[in-house]
């Protein structure tokens, strides 16, 4: 990075943050701090929901996922349109009618205090862990850009995010997210245009598609019914619908965003905006990864994309072994490129037989490249738990993009990290304040006291997420790790709300014990079954509903059966 990059980076991030603070000056009472000012139009709500979900993990890790595994990850978003329609039609009118600050207040009104606290506790646990992962992403960028130690970078970037969130609250999050998402889109589009221009001149669009397809990078939809396959049409439509239903319908970091809409119409349209545009957006980001894959077929990449770690290992005395791997990689990559040129020439000459033979040779050469990269990964971590796919995009940015654009892309990651992290910490602080502190420990204090408490709880959760990020060693890449953690805890939370909305004969005691039993069951299944994590969302929700029904049958009729909520 040079002076121009730093100017773009600092100007963008500080400009947005300071503008947000200026715009929301003097509007910090407890309600606006926790919930926002409640006057957002649908476009702001939609962008805010999108920015909260699309953390730096999305923009850093998803292209790496596309680079390594192609477009198949897009199937996880197949559940989103269905889930958002259900939320807009059922969940949202109830939340708005009850005028809740947190979603878990609904559980208290529908069931009892212990069920409300259980829902809030599950949210705090899983979102606290998830927040640790989202803090990882900007730290990866910084440590790669500046060559800093990862642990020091996690602490520094975490503290910046905490300060920003505590200063701003929900209102500032809403105001700034629309500008942050603008920076994000500008950065990603710039990266795409430059990537397309960097592909070899002789590589036509059909060549590129054929090459990527031949390497299995364009298998966007998988019809397999094997439950062990992680991303299929069925796990996407069935399992991911429940994941998205839980995330958007019961996770306070999202509920808080769309409840800031000026009316039911604005909130609904904000959700529908996401239902329409999320799949093409994720497709676009994954396509960036596929484009990088094509680019690196013709331009030699580092054998291991976490170059800081690689250099560190070299300095630790592994020089000879790692240099041998680098030499083998250079040889294998050169061979693959030669085979690719042979294939392209045969294809452009219309020689079908030669093209077919060359394609097989390309595939074999690519397997040899992959084998050397696997050796490099093992050299970095003999247990095979560390992967470098999260570093692919940032490495490409730093090595191949012009100055100014580098600053814009790094600003993109920061904008995404700030917007998502701020929303998460704000939701964690709000839930701790509203559902635990104000409801259980100190019921009669004034707004100023709760406002101060909310800020301190935000700091506390920021520290928890930093601690988790420091201690975590992730076997998965970041974007998958976030979804796996969600799939372990969300099903039970969704089960609580589904029972509340649709099974009015079930009372608090039955659903409370049913939910606890289901949480134990889901954790046990996760460690014993070998199926796609998306299925736990469906299985867990169904188990929670069934166990609640069963326990209620044992307990006898619920004397306080709530009337069915009306819907608009």
């Amino acid at each position, binding site marked *: 990075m040079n002076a121009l990059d730093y100017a773009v980076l600092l100007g963008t991030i500080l400009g947005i943050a300071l503008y947000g603070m200026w715009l929301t000056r003097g509007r910090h009472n407890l309600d606006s701090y926790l919930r926002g000012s409640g006057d957002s139009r649908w476009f702001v709500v939609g962008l805010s929901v999108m920015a909260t979900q699309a953390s730096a993990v999305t923009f850093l890790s998803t292209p790496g996922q596309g680079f390594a595994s192609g477009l198949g990850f897009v199937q996880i978003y*197949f559940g989103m349109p269905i889930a958002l329609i259900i939320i807009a039609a059922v969940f949202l009118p109830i939340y708005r009618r009850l005028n809740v600050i947190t979603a878990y207040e609904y559980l208290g009104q529908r069931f009892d205090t212990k069920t409300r606290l259980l829902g809030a506790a599950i949210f705090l646990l899983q979102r606290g862990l998830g927040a640790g992962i989202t803090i990882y992403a900007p730290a990866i960028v910084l440590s790669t850009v500046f060559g800093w130690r990862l642990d020091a970078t996690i602490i520094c970037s975490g503290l910046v995010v905490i300060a920003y969130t505590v200063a701003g609250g929900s209102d500032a999050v809403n105001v700034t997210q629309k500008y942050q998402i603008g920076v994000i889109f500008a950065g990603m589009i710039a990266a795409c245009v430059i990537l397309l221009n960097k592909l070899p001149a002789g590589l036509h669009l059909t060549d590129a598609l054929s090459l990527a397809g031949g390497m299995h990078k364009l298998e966007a939809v998988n019809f397999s019914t094997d439950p062990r396959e992680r991303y299929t049409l069925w796990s996407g439509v069935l399992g991911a619908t429940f994941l998205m239903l839980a995330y958007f319908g019961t996770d306070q970091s999202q509920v808080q965003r769309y409840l800031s809409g000026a009316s039911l119409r604005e909130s609904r349209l904000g959700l529908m905006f996401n239902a329409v545009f999320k799949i093409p957006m994720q497709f676009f980001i994954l396509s960036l990864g596929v484009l990088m894959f094509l680019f690196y077929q013709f331009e030699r990449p580092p054998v291991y994309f976490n170059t800081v770690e690689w250099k560190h290992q070299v300095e630790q005395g592994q020089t000879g072994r790692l240099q041998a791997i680098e030499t083998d990689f250079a040889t294998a990559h050169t061979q693959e490129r030669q085979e690719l040129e042979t294939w392209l020439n045969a294809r452009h000459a219309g020689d079908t037989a030669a093209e077919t033979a060359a394609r097989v040779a390309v595939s074999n050469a690519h397997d040899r490249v992959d084998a050397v990269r696997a050796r490099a990964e093992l050299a970095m971590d003999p247990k095979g738990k560390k992967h470098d796919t999260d570093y692919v995009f940032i490495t490409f940015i730093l090595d191949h993009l012009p100055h100014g654009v580098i600053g814009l892309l790094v600003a993109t990651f920061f904008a995404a990290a700030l917007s998502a992290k701020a929303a998460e910490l704000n939701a964690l602080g709000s839930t701790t304040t509203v559902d635990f502190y104000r409801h259980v420990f100190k019921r009669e204090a004034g707004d100023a006291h709760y406002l101060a408490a909310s800020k301190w709880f935000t700091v506390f959760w920021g520290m928890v997420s930093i601690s988790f990020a420091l201690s975590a060693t992730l076997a998965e890449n970041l974007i998958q790790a976030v979804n796996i953690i969600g799939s372990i805890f969300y099903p039970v939370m969704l089960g609580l709300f589904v029972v509340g909305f649709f099974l009015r004969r079930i009372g608090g005691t039955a659903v409370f014990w049913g939910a606890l039993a289901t949480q134990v069951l889901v954790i046990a299944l996760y460690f014993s079954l070998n199926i796609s994590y998306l299925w736990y969302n469906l299985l867990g929700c169904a188990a929670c509903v069934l166990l609640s029904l069963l326990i209620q049958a044992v307990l006898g009729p619920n004397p306080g059966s709530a009337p069915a909520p009306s819907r608009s």
Partner: protein
Amino acid sequence: MKPLDDKTTGSSETTPGPADSNNCETGLPGLRTWRAVYAFVLAVFALWVVLLVTLSRLFS
């Protein structure tokens, strides 16, 4: 401090929200009811799946 039951105290922390009675209309040209909006969203989703399946099949 023991928490009180939400059913008896809920009103002290939350008050009913605005009626949102003027929200039956979507305000969108051509999509006047929410059912029409939801049908439109599902149609767009189906179109995306068809396009992605086509991409997968054409270049596999």
